[in-house]
């Protein structure tokens, strides 16, 4: 669980005609991580013919867009088969037609929206005119000398439009502003500059509001006419929606087939950067977990019609940064793996910190948030909301259970001490002991982190860094000497000669190492060595003290609950119950968040920053996309 899964570099030589089948088989095994590096053989060059890739990209993009309009069924992967260029081209062409159909209907919906918007504007305009008591018939009909335009223009264009219309001999009046639009009346001489005016109005985004016929009718008649238009728009929208639905049902089978074709074609396209070829021969390179190599060879043997060759070797030392690390797959560790991933991916060869992270996280969370009731509520809520929380719900359940366990140790149920006998003691009974234990935990945690750092550096073949580097062997000796000296002072009143020798000796060793590894002037060297040595001393002391927060928060949790119960005790029966309920909710929410942040801080800053580089590559094997893409 701690050590990384051994990987092998694999090179597969196949005939070019077998490439699609080889890609499919590799994807089906889900154990091949492509390596796009250029091989040493100069004759091997990238594939020149990109038609397959182009057709695929186009088709994939079309299917994704279609999925935003109509539901696309899941692909049928019962028959894993090679998709040829002809089939892919035909699928792409059909998807093009399907997308055009969707586009036309989307355009239809937009036109209806536009008509509805214009109707709204028209209603607003007529309501406005009604108050002005003007004869609207005059505005609708052109006169012999005057031309009228009534409509809406984006407000930000008004000023320029007014200037431009002025040059064309027209006047613009704004009579109402609604949202981003202004309602305007444009008046000018008839005929002379009609095309010029039309061009300016188009550029300015002017939309004419058609004034209805029969404006001298009663307001009820006009309103009825508008209502009829609105109903017509609704009807047309419903018809269009029905048409889309019918077509979606008709297209369903074909869409499923297209989705299947694309899923089967995808591995070849994804693998493309890792393929090199020379004549009829093609070479595919990648990384495979060592235990999966034999299975992969057997599967290729069964599926490829022609002969092939598979060579595998251990990763070279210079390739370590490129080798992908297989993530931890245990279900219980998944939510914690997500938190580790926020910091980075372990480099190949390094210890995967997920397991240690999980254990130490739960221990610290439980200590700082120890209460049977609060833990049970947290676990229960995470369980109830497991669907929206996804894999992360397990984090809530485990953290809650950890709180329950520590709640039994501390004898606390929703802050009440008398309901359960403490299996150990309440943190507030002996705060000094709690602080001492927290310090001890800090020393253990930092020592463990340094130990992992040393292991990781040896694992990636950097012995000098393991001994003299930050948090290496010499640093650890210094730290242990310092801790030993501190314990001696507490017990005997003196630091002790051996301890002092250990501390001074290791600091001198670090200073000498830094001195010879610095490329600078003497003055600068002295300054840097002095500051770095001082930083080492201060850093370890402050980092250890940082763990006092574990005890501080466990005491704080008890103190907060005492405050809640004291306040409740000062109230009447109803006030008591309300205070206990809301006080507990307040403590759970506030402390739950703060404790999580504090534990994360200790993990990332005091732990990961020492032993976890986080600059590795995650193992991401070629695989068939079993589910359709999310819209």
């Amino acid at each position, binding site marked *: 669980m701690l050590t990384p899964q051994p990987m092998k570099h694999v090179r597969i030589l196949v005939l070019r005609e077998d490439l699609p089948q080889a890609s499919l088989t590799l994807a089906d095994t889900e154990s091949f991580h492509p390596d796009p590096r250029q091989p040493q053989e100069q004759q091997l060059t990238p594939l020149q013919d990109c038609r397959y890739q182009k057709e695929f990209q*186009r088709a994939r993009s079309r299917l994704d867009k279609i999925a935003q309009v109509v539901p696309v069924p899941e692909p049928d992967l019962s028959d894993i088969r090679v998709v040829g260029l002809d089939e892919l081209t035909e699928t792409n062409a059909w998807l093009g037609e399907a997308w055009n159909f969707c586009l036309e209907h989307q355009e239809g919906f937009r036109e209806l929206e536009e008509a509805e918007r214009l109707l709204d504007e028209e209603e607003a305009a007529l309501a406005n005119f009604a108050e002005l008591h003007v004869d609207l018939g005059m505005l609708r009909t052109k006169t012999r000398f005057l031309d009228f335009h009534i409509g809406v223009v*984006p407000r930000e264009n008004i000023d320029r439009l007014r200037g431009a219309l*002025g040059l064309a001999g027209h006047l613009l009046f704004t009579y109402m502003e609604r949202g981003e639009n202004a309602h305007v009346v444009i008046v000018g001489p008839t005929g002379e500059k009609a095309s010029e005016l039309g*061009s300016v109005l188009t*550029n300015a*985004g002017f939309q004419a509001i058609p004034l209805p016929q029969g404006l001298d009718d009663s307001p009820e008649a006009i309103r009825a006419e508008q209502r009829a238009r609105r109903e017509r728009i609704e009807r047309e929208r419903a018809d269009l929606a029905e048409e889309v639905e019918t077509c979606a049902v008709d297209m369903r089978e074909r869409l499923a087939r297209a989705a299947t074709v694309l899923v089967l074609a995808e591995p070849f396209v994804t693998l493309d950067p890792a393929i090199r070829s020379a004549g009829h021969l093609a070479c595919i390179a990648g990384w495979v977990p060592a235990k999966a190599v034999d299975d992969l060879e057997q599967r290729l043997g069964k599926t490829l019609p022609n002969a092939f060759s598979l060579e595998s070797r251990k990763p070279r030392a210079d390739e370590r940064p490129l080798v992908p690390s297989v993530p931890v797959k245990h279900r219980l560790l998944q939510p914690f793996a997500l938190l580790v991933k926020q910091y980075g991916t372990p480099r190949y060869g390094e210890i995967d910190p997920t397991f240690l992270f999980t254990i130490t996280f739960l221990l610290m969370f439980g200590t700082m948030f120890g209460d049977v009731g609060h833990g049970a509520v947290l676990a229960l809520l995470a369980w109830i909301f497991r669907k929206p929380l996804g894999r992360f719900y397990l984090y809530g359940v485990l953290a809650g259970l950890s709180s329950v366990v520590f709640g039994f140790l501390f004898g606390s149920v929703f802050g009440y001490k008398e309901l359960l006998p403490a299996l150990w003691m309440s943190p507030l009974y002996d705060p000094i002991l709690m602080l001492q234990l927290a310090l001890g935990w800090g020393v253990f945690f930092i020592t463990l982190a340094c130990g992992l750092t040393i292991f990781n550096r040896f694992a990636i073949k950097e012995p000098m860094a393991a001994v003299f580097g930050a948090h290496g062997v010499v640093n650890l000796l210094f730290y242990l000497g310092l801790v030993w000296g501190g314990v001696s002072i507490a017990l005997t009143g003196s630091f002790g000669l051996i301890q002092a020798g250990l501390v001074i000796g290791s600091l001198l060793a670090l200073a000498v190492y830094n001195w010879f590894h610095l490329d600078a002037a003497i003055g600068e060297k002295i300054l840097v060595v002095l500051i770095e040595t001082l930083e080492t001393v201060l850093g370890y002391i402050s980092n250890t003290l940082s763990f006092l927060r574990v005890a501080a928060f466990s005491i704080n949790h008890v103190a907060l609950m005492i405050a809640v119960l004291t306040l409740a005790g000062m109230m009447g029966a109803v006030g008591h119950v309300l205070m206990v309920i809301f006080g507990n909710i307040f403590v759970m929410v506030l402390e739950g968040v703060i404790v999580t942040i504090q534990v994360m801080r200790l993990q990332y800053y005091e732990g990961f920053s020492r032993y976890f580089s986080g600059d590795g590559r995650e193992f991401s094997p070629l695989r068939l996309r079993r589910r359709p893409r999310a819209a």
Partner: protein
Amino acid sequence: MSSAAHNAYLNTRVAGKATQLFRAGDIERFVQLGLPELGQQFGLGTILEEPGSARVKSRAVEQALMQVLLEELTVLIRPMDPAERGLVVAWARQFALFNLKTLLRGKIRQLDPQEIRENLYDLPPQVRLSTEDLFRVENAVELLRLLESGPLSLLARQAREIYEKRQEAFALEAAIDQRYYADMVRRVARLEDSTAQRQMRMLVGSLVDRANVLWLMRFRFGYQLSPSETFYQLVPSPHLLHRERLLELVGLDDQPKVIAALPEPLRSLLADAGNLMEIQRRLGQHMSRIAWSSLRSGQSGVGRALAYLLLREADLRLVFSLIQGRLLGLPEPYVDLALGLSPAICVHQWREAA
């Protein structure tokens, strides 16, 4: 950081960077250099030495030079307050608009997506438009529909309506450019620091004036648009060519009359300019003089930063023209013309001179 402190920091940064701007005689010296020496001088040796066509190399050089400019911009905008940063980034958004126009032209002409992609610039996140979704569209109308759902919604709606009526890119691109300058003018007006605003009115105003003169000449006398159509495409400037002056200028019916009606110093600058290229060259030099004066004696940090970026952009464009001329093997007079070392003349005049 206090206002005085951030101005001091910005001024120091700008002063440090300004030492790399070209001085008098630099261009003449670069003209004497061959391609390898130019590559070495501007850190482009690797690009120029790699195998590939002149077009591919030229493209890589342009991208590398733009990267230099945008990296400097990223450093300079760091200490600015949000309004100042917004203005400088709005200036740099011209590169994102190049991409948008390339995408539009490509989709209108139904070019191969790979070909379009090869012609797009790789931009930093501050100025980038999210082109990935835009890239997936199949035609110009679909592209504009997609833009309508983003920050360019108003522009895109108008542009689509224009495009649906006329099926050509001119009105679309004119609207994009018009909006680009109008946005900068609006941002200048919103600056709270009066010193910065004064300096920016001059600097951004000069940029807008330059665009207005060129557009006025091109739309009015090149494309024969009416005064009202021309006026609608222009942007009232906070410096010389304000709204009333533009209204006056678009009504004039030939180029000499327009030049004679321009305010000083534009009138004397453009007198006898002859053709649009020469007008463009002289306006470019005038813009550089204003930017230099802003850089040397400006009081506002952000004003000096923008002046530096304008000058740096002009310098890098010269480097690009020079290298492109070398890559394409153009005759010296053409290169001199592109570098602005000789007055722009018509082709037949050039042939006579050659």
